[in-house]
């Protein structure tokens, strides 16, 4: 039986939400790892039964969990995220230098082809890779050791590597994004990296051509057109048509210049979704109206999607990893809120309904389309 499995990471555990292709009735299992922060969990595209989860907390640190049966049972795997060599220093908020120090795994990105290979983006920003199903981790240290590393500094949420995007056919080509350093690209499987931030404009950086220092929130790509990248950053929605060599703004008529997630329709590479949020300190939807915005033209022209979403007194946030799409014929779109709702649309965003309303604050949402 085909269907979808939604993986929701929350402040107090993980939840697995499943439905058939109609996506009308849902079964909810969880909380898994109750009481722990689950920043992210994601299934392997090569084996949907294989799921990786980042479990962390202030008391007992970082744990990585792995399921080989679609989230029914879990096993602890490796949690040794030791930086390669002498970690070095990066900038702190006040401009002083501070040693790199591991805090947690923000994002797990399983390989597109091998269930045992998975990347981990961590705070303080670095990229790790496991090729044995998460038992052992090795840092791809060329990123952290980039010449610009000492200039990197944390965003409000910490200096985290939160986005990992894999090229659909070239396994050596990777993109990552770090708050608040910017976007980086590797063409050699993660050994060496190049900042790709040309064209980004960030209001609090006096140098408009700054190579790093940009607060990139999220990058999305459609696999049919891998040179086109969409970015939600602290200021503006951006687009690159040359694999990140340059960026131009496509915010158009969006009601704010801020937001966290961005994603692309599974079958329409020019259909893009964002959730505008008001910044700098409020971090809730403008006017208390929760709206997803959809562009069918690759940016610039955006339509607000409101059917089924609260249009008054709504003051939740939608975090950077908390939106995903399925790949059923009628593309499903999903997002979770800091108020504990997970919303789903089975018609590409035209109408919405909550799958569940009262989870802990949702940190991440991923979707698996099951065979």
């Amino acid at each position, binding site marked *: 039986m085909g269907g979808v499995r939604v993986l929701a990471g929350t402040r107090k555990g993980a939840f697995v939400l499943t439905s058939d292709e109609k996506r009308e009735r849902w079964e909810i299992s969880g909380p898994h790892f109750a*009481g*722990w922060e689950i920043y992210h969990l994601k299934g392997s595209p090569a084996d949907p039964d294989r799921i990786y989860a980042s479990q962390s*907390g*202030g*008391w*007992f*640190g*970082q*744990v990585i969990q792995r399921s080989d049966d679609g989230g029914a049972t879990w096993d*602890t795997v490796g*949690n*040794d995220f*030791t930086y390669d060599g002498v970690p070095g220093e990066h900038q702190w908020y006040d401009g002083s230098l501070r040693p790199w120090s591991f805090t947690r795994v923000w994002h797990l990105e399983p390989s597109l082809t091998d269930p045992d290979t998975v990347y981990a983006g961590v705070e303080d920003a670095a990229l790790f890779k496991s090729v044995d199903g998460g038992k052992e981790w090795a840092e791809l240290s060329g990123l952290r050791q980039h010449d610009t590393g000492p200039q990197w500094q944390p965003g409000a949420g910490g200096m985290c590597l939160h986005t990992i995007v894999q090229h659909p056919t070239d396994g050596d080509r990777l993109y990552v994004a770090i708050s608040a350093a910017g976007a980086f690209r590797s063409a050699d499987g993660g050994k060496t990296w190049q900042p790709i931030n040309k064209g980004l404009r960030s209001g609090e950086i006096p140098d408009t051509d700054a190579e790093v220092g940009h607060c990139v929130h999220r990058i999305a790509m459609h696999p049919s057109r891998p040179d086109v990248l969409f970015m939600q950053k602290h200021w503006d929605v951006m687009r690159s048509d040359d694999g990140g060599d340059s960026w131009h703004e496509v915010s158009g008529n969006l009601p704010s210049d801020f937001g966290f997630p961005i994603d692309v329709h599974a079958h329409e590479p020019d259909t893009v979704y964002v959730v505008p949020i008001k910044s700098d300190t409020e971090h809730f939807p403008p006017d208390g109206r929760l709206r997803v915005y959809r562009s069918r033209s690759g940016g610039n022209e955006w339509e607000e999607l409101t059917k089924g979403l609260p249009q008054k007194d709504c003051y939740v946030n939608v975090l950077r990893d908390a939106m995903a799409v399925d790949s059923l014929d009628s593309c499903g779109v999903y997002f979770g809120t800091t108020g504990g709702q997970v919303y789903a649309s089975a018609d590409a965003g035209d109408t919405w309904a909550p799958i569940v309303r009262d989870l802990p604050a949702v940190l991440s949402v991923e979707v698996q389309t099951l065979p």
Partner: protein
Amino acid sequence: MIRVVLPPHLRTIARVHGEVELDVDGTISQRSVLDALESRYPELRGTIRDRGTQQRRAFVRFFACEEDLSHEPPDAPLPDAVATGSEPFMVIGAMAGG
């Protein structure tokens, strides 16, 4: 035989119920007990002590014999009652918000 009491979250990770009993060679200290614990249950590595520095994690405390031993040197001998197994060495998740 050294008895160790783990907090519920770590019992879940280690998949144990109740107290853990360990054979520990040499001086019975925080370090030797935790080394033996992590050797038996490698999934606990990094959850009690930082993997790199081996420092106690900030919100973890060590109690035994009605005393808070958290700030004792890691190689200091634990009380005789712990070494003889009449009292457990307790790993506690500190009461803190969240």
